[in-house]
């Protein structure tokens, strides 16, 4: 009797752990039945491309959330990186533009971490408001830099083959952005699970005082998480504007909440200290599949917004129950 109960309990906890996978499978089956177009090749490629920008931003956000903080500034970072990078293709050539764009992401992340460290912010709430302010600042800089205008690929006469490849090229069956994602995922996964710094970030998120007392430099962890997040936001920005071939100074709006949603749905706890980039991949997959499903089912984009909010609340509530 006792044994049976414990087996049930283990089954229940496993179900909760892999709830996302179950939900993904469920979504795929339901949608494939209702709308056979779902499993067509063109729709799968479409899903892979939709996956691109959000997964990059979410991977970066995972580290911030594991470290016990939050970063609302990714929307502003994406805006700024996108307009700066696209404007530099013409005068500097594509590779310098690409590198400057990525460097700009790192600068934004570093700036966030400096503000957080110097103010001594230790809670998620404090980080939330500081990075919200920084998001406003970056967005305003993007507006000032671009004079509020949108830039298109067809305005650029110089070669832009690299960006066109990122946006629409294929390597074998996979799209280029998907390959970039696989490479970055491998690097980040190794960083997170096999290096001392990656472990330190986890411990910082678990309990900052305990981490400091056991000799971990939490300031170093804080700089690392924000730099990674800024860099990944920059990668996301480049993938995003390459795909849609335009860069508006408001291109990144909404990415911060979508990324937080994907990370939390994936099962990384908002309390910090626990989680993994692999979980985030599942979370993003669920979010992208869901919006693809809702699209195919003809749900308006406004209602999808509302559904996202509801799922975010539900995921946090569920996570909270699990911890308790």
């Amino acid at each position, binding site marked *: 009797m006792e044994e049976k109960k414990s087996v049930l309990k283990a089954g229940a906890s496993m179900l909760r752990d892999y709830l996302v996978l179950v939900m993904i499978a469920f979504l795929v089956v339901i949608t494939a039945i209702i709308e056979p177009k779902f499993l067509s090749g063109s729709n799968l490629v479409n899903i892979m491309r939709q996956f691109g920008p959000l997964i990059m931003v979410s991977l970066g956000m995972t580290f911030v959330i594991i470290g016990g903080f939050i970063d609302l500034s990714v929307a502003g970072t994406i805006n700024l990186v996108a307009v700066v990078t696209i404007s530099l293709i013409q005068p500097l050539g594509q590779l310098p533009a690409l590198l400057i764009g990525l460097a700009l992401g790192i600068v934004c992340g570093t700036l966030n971490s400096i503000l957080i460290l110097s103010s*001594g*912010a230790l809670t998620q709430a404090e980080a939330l*408001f*500081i990075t919200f302010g920084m998001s406003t600042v970056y967005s305003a800089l993007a507006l000032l830099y671009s004079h509020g205008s949108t830039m298109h690929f067809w305005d650029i006469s110089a070669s832009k083959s690299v960006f066109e490849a990122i946006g629409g090229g294929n390597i074998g069956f996979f799209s280029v952005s998907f390959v970039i994602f696989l490479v970055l995922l491998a690097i980040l996964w190794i960083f997170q699970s096999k290096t001392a710094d990656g472990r330190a970030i986890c411990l910082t998120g678990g309990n900052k005082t305990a981490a400091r007392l056991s000799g971990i430099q939490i300031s170093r962890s804080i700089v690392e998480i924000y730099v990674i997040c800024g860099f990944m936001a920059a990668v996301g920005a480049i993938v995003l504007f390459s795909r849609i071939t335009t860069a508006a100074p408001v291109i990144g709006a909404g990415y911060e909440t979508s990324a937080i949603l994907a990370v939390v749905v994936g099962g990384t706890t908002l309390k910090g200290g626990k989680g993994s980039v692999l979980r985030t991949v599942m979370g993003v997959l669920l979010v992208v599949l869901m919006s693809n499903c809702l699209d195919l089912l003809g749900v308006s984009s406004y209602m999808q917004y509302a559904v996202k909010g509801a799922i975010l609340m539900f995921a*946090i509530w569920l996570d909270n129950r699990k911890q308790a």
Partner: protein
Amino acid sequence: MSKSGILTSIYKALTKQKAFIALLVMMIGMLFSKTNFYSAYNLLDMLNSTSILLILAFGVTFTIISGGCDLSIGGNLVVAGILAIKLLDVMPIWLAILIAVLFGAVVGFVNGFLVVQQKTEPFIITLGMGLLLTGVAQQLTDAHPLPAKNPNFMMISNGDFHGIPNLVIIMLVCFGISYWIMRYTQFGRNLYAIGGDYEVARYSGIDVIRTKWMGFVLSGVAAALAGVLLSSKLNTGSPVYGETTALVVNCGVVVGGTSFAGGIGGIPQSGLGLLVFGMLDNVMNMLGITSYYQVLLKGAVIVAIIWMDCFANKRKREAV
């Protein structure tokens, strides 16, 4: 008192009264500008255009004092405003407003259930609620502004009483009521106790869950009321005003000296904090600063002030 002692006390006063000092700096600065800043018309106009934000801030203060936070007020504001305008077609004004405000109370109730009863972190969960409500608002209006058909509705916010705009009068009434609740009722005192130390409040016999929950309901009611007033002021229901309002109002409350740590602050402080943003807008418009620079400056002010709040918290932690 030693020299460093005096310096510390000056520093303390500066950080405590940062909203007041910011207002003073702007007022002194405007003495040297050749604008009509110091006209009764402009000052009243400034108060009028800040009134809606002030009403939001009074509501949010109830949640922040007790150690919570409400980022759903932006979504709540737009949905309540649109709801009021839609209901106007089928029922008298007072009933439409009443239903919109009741809707706000329900949103606050759900927030309270999730945050207080289920003990989730208030920040992201109310952000999610805001997202949900913004989506609902866009669906209700198809993302277009929705004009009101009843001309009397417009007069609520745009009318005036002997030269004083109605909005300012309503704001002052809200101020009076919330100040009284916070300061002179057992409920208000209990909110302070809960924010100060949740466990101590619980052990001293306060019904912590019910009290904190009620704070969220009040915040929802204030947000819905603000939404109705905004719709009346613009004579349209529009889904776009909710996006950053919630974060700005919560920041404004902190600017006034109410801390996210809970237990410190009050209604007058929140009012001062929001006035900083109201006056900043007014001053920037007066000086003819273009809109992109306005956004930049506002962001920088938010970062600077939240930074100071965090820094003060850090010093407090280290002093213990």
